[in-house]
């Protein structure tokens, strides 16, 4: 499945773009997505374990299956306030 992923903050700077078009196997999980991201962008390796995932505006963990039509985002730990 093809999905569009939003990335933010430091991760966006490391990758050089705020949106990514990615291809994942059907039924792929958040962890699969992070693995794919790391394969494409090895510079994020040291940050991977801190990264947060969301789907349709809700936090998800690495075991959650990604839905093909969902809005998916990956970002560093938040620092608002």
């Amino acid at each position, binding site marked *: 499945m093809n999905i569009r992923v939003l990335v933010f903050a430091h991760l966006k700077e490391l990758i050089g773009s705020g949106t990514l078009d990615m291809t994942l196997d059907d039924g792929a999980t958040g962890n699969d997505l992070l693995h794919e991201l790391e394969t494409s962008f090895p510079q994020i390796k040291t940050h991977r374990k801190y990264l947060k995932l969301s789907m349709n505006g809700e936090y998800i963990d690495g075991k959650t299956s990604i839905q093909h039509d969902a809005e998916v*985002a990956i970002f560093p730990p938040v620092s608002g306030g």
Partner: protein
Amino acid sequence: MYEIVEHEIDVEKVIARVSVPEAGAVTTFIGLTRNFTGEMKVELLQYEAYHSMAIKMMERIGLEAVEKYDIRKIAITHRIGDVAVEEASVVIAVSASHRKPAFQACEYAIDTLKEIVPIWKKESMTNGKQKWIANDPDLKKL
């Protein structure tokens, strides 16, 4: 009641949003850009938001605050973009019949905002260096 703005926050407007005749107290929290991080002199903070999710999480904080504490209304405004020293990045206002739940809900709201609302800040120092910040003290500055 929940908004993300790219300009200076009008604190009075945020307070006005929680005004109700039943309120005997309004508490506010105002988060500001501070001039030093350790030894480093800060020029400004640059904020970025995942807008739609940030609003959703702020709405959740408001609903939870109303469930947990005996309050009337809550409003949260977060600023993004450049926020200079002494300027406000976030303003929270809570109205309640009595002061105690208003204080408690305000503290709950800012603590939870710092944990879950997808907004990030980068420090710009007067020496030209820039650094992304993590709120969680257990994390290294990424």
